[in-house]
């Protein structure tokens, strides 16, 4: 029971799917093999993008530390938007881990708009780029990410106005 608790949701999901494939191998081998061939095709195309993203993440982790973010982006209004955007993109799951920090940031002058902007940008995730680029291409993902960043700030401004009026 204790061992089960140590398995993360992601690994549990993977083991479940592998078990499904094992079951399928005995029940319907041709379906299992066809699916695995399709899986291999996707995997081969995705590996180079994966390596590139890993490299970009190493560079980002090396230069953009939480200290760096707080030092340079916690000064005035415009920089707070930047902090919300960059922080949202770099933040990792699960969301409930971020609630205490967001509550703390609100006390330090981060209004609801910044929080909304931060949460919106959590949608842009570096580790999932390989799959996203594989399916949609660089151009689409780049445009979508830029539009989403603009939308996140717009949402923040809207939330600030609406909550000011209603609270």
């Amino acid at each position, binding site marked *: 029971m204790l061992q089960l608790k140590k398995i993360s949701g992601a690994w549990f999901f*993977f083991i479940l799917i592998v078990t*499904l494939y094992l079951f399928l191998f005995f029940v319907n081998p041709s379906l299992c093999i*066809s*699916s695995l061939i399709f899986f291999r095709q996707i995997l081969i195309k995705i590996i180079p993008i994966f390596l590139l993203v890993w490299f970009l993440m190493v560079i980002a*982790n090396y230069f953009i530390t939480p200290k760096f973010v707080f030092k340079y982006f916690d000064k005035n209004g415009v920089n707070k938007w930047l902090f919300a955007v960059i922080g949202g993109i770099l933040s990792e799951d699960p969301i409930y881990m971020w609630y205490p920090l*967001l509550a703390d940031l609100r006390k330090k002058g981060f209004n609801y708009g910044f929080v909304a902007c931060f949460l919106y940008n959590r949608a842009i995730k570096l580790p999932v780029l390989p799959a996203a680029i594989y*399916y*949609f291409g660089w151009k*689409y993902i780049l445009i979508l990410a830029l539009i989403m960043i603009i939308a996140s700030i717009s949402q923040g401004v809207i939330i600030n106005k609406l909550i000011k009026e209603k609270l």
Partner: protein
Amino acid sequence: MKKAIIKATESLGKVLPLILGTILLVSLLTIIIPESFYTRFFNKNIIFDSFIGSISAGTPIISYILGGEMLKQGISLIAVTTFLVTWVTVGFIQIPTESIALGRKFAILRNLSAFVLSIIVAFTTVLILNIV
């Protein structure tokens, strides 16, 4: 640099089983499900597609893989983009938790505005993509 390498490897390592599992599942579903299913289920109705994305509370990787497969089956890019964006920015199921943490008004307003924005984001993205 060593720290940065470890952190990047750990971040990717965390999502790797999810990515592999999802691709395995999608591979299986692609073989099983007929192509007509996607076109019937996602019937070019942007509001409907965005609603499906909004009630789904998965990680972004799943939405990209599903969206990619939907695109291959002939669903419009606007509908797929709306689905992708709502999947990651709107979480109707998570509203109770978000309400407890950040307030009910904020949670409702954030999700509703994200829902509306997803349609605008989809149209703008596809429009720019066609121009560039």
